[in-house]
């Protein structure tokens, strides 16, 4: 017997009981929809977290001064002033497989232009900062080595600062006052938008590190050193070399505690993506349970259907239907329920996921994998839970079935 014929029989049978077929499908619709919506939420969380870590720079090591320890009372990390610009230079020169080294200091100041003022964070950086943070200059230029060595009072500003102080005017070449000292604007950064942590990445003022240390903050240390390693697999080697080098430079020997910490963003990223992966799996499997419940619903209805149609089965068998014919008819029926339910579930799941991202102001990620997996899973459920009722139908004795009232 032809498959198309079995398909037609199945559709006829399903259309004969529209409401019942729909209610049976509902289990699968909710199951598949929930799996897709939940996984897209989980993947959205994962993407947000990994993006925010990646936006800090890839293959990045962050060196922070250690916490001050006075008589066993420890202050917050960064509370000591042990890191120097020379440390950064030493790392650049002596550690292998390093692309960029960027020491920074920062403070928050009022910035004034004409009758406008704006509060922003002012960061002192070296030219490497641009590469390490993947910044682009929209107009003008970035801080140069010469600005560094001359301690020039020059500044590069973000678009938020530019629009707040200058409106539509071109800021390049203008003078602003930072902490009452004049700085000449040499460039405007291209907009980067909001970071996934919610910080406005365009609300920045960047000046040469030396200028910031000596002319603005009056300090000799740096607050952090960002190091970009050439590749992912060189991270551990670079990290251990930096640690050795800094211990040596800071004259820390034996079992004494480091006065600095080297943070590895990769391990952070791995932990975070592991955690979010677990969340996704958890959400997905909870939704998956509803799929199985939906499958049991199909089985339940198919059992009822087989009993109800005992006489029909008897007639078909008397007319020459084989075991396989009857088996196929009922199996296709349950698969059709699950396939149609699965497709509606996919549409609803995607719609729900989009609705969550619109209403919840939270980006969800729909990928093809959970769609395909949940679809084929629902087909599998239709098959699995359809086999028993279909076998029951196919095994009916034609004489008994014909006698059934």
């Amino acid at each position, binding site marked *: 017997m032809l498959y198309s014929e079995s398909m037609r029989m199945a559709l*006829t049978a399903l259309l004969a009981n529209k409401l019942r077929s729909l209610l049976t499908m509902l289990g699968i619709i909710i199951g598949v929809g929930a799996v897709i919506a939940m996984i897209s939420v989980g993947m959205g969380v994962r993407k947000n977290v990994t993006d925010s870590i990646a936006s800090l720079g890839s293959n990045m090591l962050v060196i922070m001064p250690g916490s001050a320890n006075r008589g066993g009372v420890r202050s917050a990390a960064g509370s000591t002033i042990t890191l120097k610009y020379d440390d950064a230079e030493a790392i650049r020169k002596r550690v292998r497989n390093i692309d960029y080294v960027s020491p920074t200091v920062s403070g928050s100041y009022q910035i004034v232009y004409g009758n406008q003022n704006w509060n922003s964070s002012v960061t002192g950086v070296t030219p490497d900062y641009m590469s390490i943070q993947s910044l682009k200059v929209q107009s003008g230029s970035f801080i140069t080595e010469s600005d560094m060595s001359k301690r020039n009072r020059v500044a590069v500003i973000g678009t938020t600062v530019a629009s707040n102080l200058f409106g539509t005017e071109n800021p390049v070449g203008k003078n602003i006052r930072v902490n009452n000292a004049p700085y000449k604007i040499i460039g405007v950064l291209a907009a980067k938008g909001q970071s996934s942590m919610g910080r406005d990445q365009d609300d920045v003022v960047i000046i040469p590190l030396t200028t910031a240390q000596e002319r603005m903050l009056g300090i000799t240390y740096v607050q952090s050193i960002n190091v970009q390693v050439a590749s992912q697999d060189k991270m551990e080697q670079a990290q251990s070399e930096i640690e050795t080098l800094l211990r040596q430079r800071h004259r820390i020997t034996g079992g004494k505690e480091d006065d600095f910490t080297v943070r590895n963003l990769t391990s952070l990223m791995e932990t975070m993506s592991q955690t979010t992966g677990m969340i996704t799996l958890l959400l997905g499997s909870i939704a998956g349970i509803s799929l199985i419940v939906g499958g049991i619903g199909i089985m339940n209805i198919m059992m009822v259907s087989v009993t109800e149609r005992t006489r029909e089965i008897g007639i078909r068998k008397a*007319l020459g*239907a*084989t*075991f396989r014919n009857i088996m196929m008819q009922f199996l296709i029926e349950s698969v059709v329920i699950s396939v149609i339910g699965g497709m509606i579930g996919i549409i609803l799941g995607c719609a729900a996921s989009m609705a969550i991202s619109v209403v919840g102001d939270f980006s969800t990620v729909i990928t093809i994998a959970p769609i395909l997996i949940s679809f084929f899973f629902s087909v599998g459920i239709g098959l699995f839970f359809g086999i028993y009722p279909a076998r029951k139908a196919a095994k009916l004795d034609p004489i008994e079935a*014909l006698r059934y009232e």
Partner: protein
Amino acid sequence: MGMTEKRHETIELKGIKKLYRMGDQEVAALAGIDLVIHQGEFAALMGPSGSGKSTLMNILGCLDRPTTGSYKLDGEEVAHLSDDKLAVTRNKKIGFVFQNFNLLSRISALENVALPLVYAGVGGKERKERALHYLDSVGLADRADHQPNELSGGQRQRVAIARALVNDPHIIMADEPTGNLDTKSTKEIMEIFERMHSLGRTIILVTHEPEIAACASRQLLVRDGLITKDAGKGVVMDVV
């Protein structure tokens, strides 16, 4: 020179026994039946309830298997075939007409008639043509698209007869085909059977009404699992 000479033996039963176990006892529904039915015969099978008539009918219709014995249908041994082979045999060699019509209620008369062809693997277009041809032969071509519940009892039975004929079977098994019909429809249906007989079809008719059985060319009486009388046309047998 009898009518049956040289005729092909469509059904040949030898020592057919059907035993049922009831508790410790073994009950014989059929106690060893020998029977030959030739091609083109119109045989009426009669007998009181409990006589084994239904069991014999089921075995003849390949719906059931005998416990022992041999059943040659059109020369082929079918007594101990598997379920699926029996299904194929029913599909190809036997057309059923039931007392309560046994049409599928959700599909049209035409689709009902075409159903055996679906299981015979005949393509859609040819199915429709053949089904329409046989519907026409029972005078219902204009009712092809009607569902069974839109037809009268007599019309439903005619659809069922068309369905029994559609795969051109060796024998037609009719189980009380007029049991649920009024006098007028009964007459119509019996006329169709007689016409089929005159066209050379082999018909086995199960009935308990002597008047219906009298239409057949041969009458068989089953009692206590055996054929106790075998008579020609026109004899009105006393079933009880």
